[in-house]
């Protein structure tokens, strides 16, 4: 697999040529927002990350899982049936390395030693991801502190780097190579291009000002971190609104609900949030996480302690900074982690 060069002014044609084999998506400006939308050629290259993470592609906020007939007269009344899996090959162009790393984290969540979440993997495996390296990180980015970076390749099939006049395309998987083969019209990259990538990468990493250390979090026991007294301080201003969980690329908790309309029934899963009191509420009225403190603690502990502990060391945060930018009361995950690591 060799690095390829695409003339920037040929990007539109490149994406168009892929739309034959893939349903193609990319970053676009819509209502003043960056969103991942179907592309017909035009995409943004120099953009701050999208407000919501692209996890919606593989983990839609609401997704029908199963369906059933609620017609008592039907032969198969109230028997749950699978829906045909969506196998349409999709290509996501221009997602940021942090979001791709988040997919890699979620791959480990949605498949454990016993079970595989088919809804995630059906869509995930049918998708090809061409990531776009971050030449210009935002002030809220801290990816380099959590095992990620502006040119991080994990989770991607191709890494694209904006070199100014050209775009370098670095295939990382067979799936990525296949996409590049399907597009054609690319030239081989030379040593000069490789040197520019290294230079841009160095500059981008240097531009990330915010750093947090997580080494002590790894060393400390669950209970030591859990019982620390800084949680009450964080919780005092937390609204438990859950914006952080909804914008987060690695938050993956969900609720399962049944809905019936006439004789059509669906079992649906929806994003859920550990910030909600209802999340853990028992039918008996007992709530294991009864207060704001325990709920806000859960989110940070889950990302920075429980996931690394359970999933081979990887931190469940990719440093995208969305929660930092969006929290209505400015609870900054970087500060919280500094407290955990203090």
């Amino acid at each position, binding site marked *: 697999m060799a690095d390829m060069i695409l003339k920037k002014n040929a990007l539109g044609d490149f994406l168009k040529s892929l739309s034959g084999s893939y349903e193609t998506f990319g970053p676009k400006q819509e*209502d*003043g*927002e960056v969103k991942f939308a179907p592309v017909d050629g035009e995409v943004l290259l120099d953009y*701050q*990350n999208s*407000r*919501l993470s692209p996890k919606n592609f593989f983990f839609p*906020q*609401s997704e029908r899982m199963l369906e059933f007939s609620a017609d008592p007269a039907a032969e198969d009344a109230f028997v749950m049936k699978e829906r045909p899996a969506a196998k349409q090959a999709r290509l996501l162009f221009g997602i940021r390395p942090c979001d791709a790393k988040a997919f890699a984290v979620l791959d480990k969540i949605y498949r454990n030693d016993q079970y595989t979440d088919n809804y995630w993997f059906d869509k995930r495996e049918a998708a090809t991801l061409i990531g776009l390296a971050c030449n*210009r990180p*935002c*002030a*809220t980015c801290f990816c380099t502190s959590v095992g990620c970076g502006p040119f991080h390749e994990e989770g991607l099939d191709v890494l694209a780097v904006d070199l100014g006049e050209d775009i370098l395309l670095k295939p990382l998987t067979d799936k990525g190579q296949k996409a590049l083969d399907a597009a054609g019209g690319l030239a081989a990259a030379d040593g000069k291009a490789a040197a520019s990538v290294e230079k841009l990468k160095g500059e981008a990493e240097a*531009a990330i000002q915010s750093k947090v250390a997580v080494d002590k979090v790894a060393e400390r026991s669950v209970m030591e971190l859990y019982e620390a007294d800084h949680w009450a301080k964080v919780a*005092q*201003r937390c*609204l*438990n*609104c*859950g*914006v952080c*969980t*909804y*914008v987060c690329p690695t938050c993956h908790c969900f*609720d399962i*609900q049944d*809905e019936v309309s006439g004789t059509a029934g669906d079992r*649906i899963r*929806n*994003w859920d*949030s550990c910030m*909600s*009191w*209802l999340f853990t509420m028992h039918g008996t009225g007992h709530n294991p996480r009864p207060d704001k403190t325990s709920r806000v603690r859960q989110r940070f502990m889950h990302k920075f302690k429980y996931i690394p502990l359970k999933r081979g060391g990887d931190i469940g945060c990719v440093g995208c*900074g969305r929660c*930092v*930018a*969006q929290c*209505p*009361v*400015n*609870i*900054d995950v*970087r*500060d919280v982690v500094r407290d955990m690591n203090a």
Partner: protein
Amino acid sequence: MDKRTEKIREIAKRLLSEDRVDVVLGYGPGTVPLRNAPLFARTPEEADKLIWDSNCRINLANFLPRTKERVAVLAKGCDARNIVNHVVEHQIKRDQVYIVGVPCQGMLDPEKVQQREGRFIESAVESDGDLTVSGPGFETTLKLADVLRQNCQTCVHRNPPVYDELVGEPVPEQTDIDRYADINDLLGKPDGERYAYFQNLVKDCIRCYACRDACPLCYCHVCFVDEHMPQWLGKSVDPHDVLTYHILRAFHCAGRCTDCGACEAACPVNIKLRQFTRLLEKDIQERYGYEAGMSLETLPPLTVYRPDDPQEFIK
């Protein structure tokens, strides 16, 4: 330093050192430009971190219900009205809360600023009605008045109607403001267009309920969206459920909403939630001559009635 910042610190330190209150609820600097954080000052040292600028959007009245402490709260006009609401609705006792009123000239809308350089903004400095934002390779100065939130631009109660102490002198109230021009426009359109407008308005909603959680009015132990048996609405992003949520939430704010804008400030997807609440605000003003939170003596309009209330639509 803003003169009000100095004064606020002075008041807070006095209240804490004289043991008048257990905590002063104010604002501290945030970790990102254009965003302050609520600050709970319990010692004079902590009170020294309090600040005042045009990013004190969060409505601190939201933190009052169910609090056991004696609290001093920094309150803009709208916030003070929400505190009045809380007192009237028995969510907090008047003598438990010490209202530090801050005459307000409007809070800025970070979205309006970010339209220019977005998250690349690394610093934002205010002085004399100007806002200078800068980041890698740029520096722009804007007029604060141009980037105020819409509810602040049309605000007619900048001074707290009820307070224990005022920070500085009252500011002149804005007059000749048409608060409801856009609402009236909308009402002039056919119902089908209005329906489409509201469908579109909430299409990005992710049901995070940040609007509810940031709202001082929403202090219910169990919100109707969390009820089951019966479960009033589905939990998905089905457009009907989303719109139902917004309609009912707005209705629950009827006669109580002070148009503080906390909901819009908290919304992660920029839904103009006040389009719902302002209709009711306008309606209540026109039909019952009531404005929320203006006095401790007046009861909210849905808890009282007049025998001759308008009923032109009832057969």
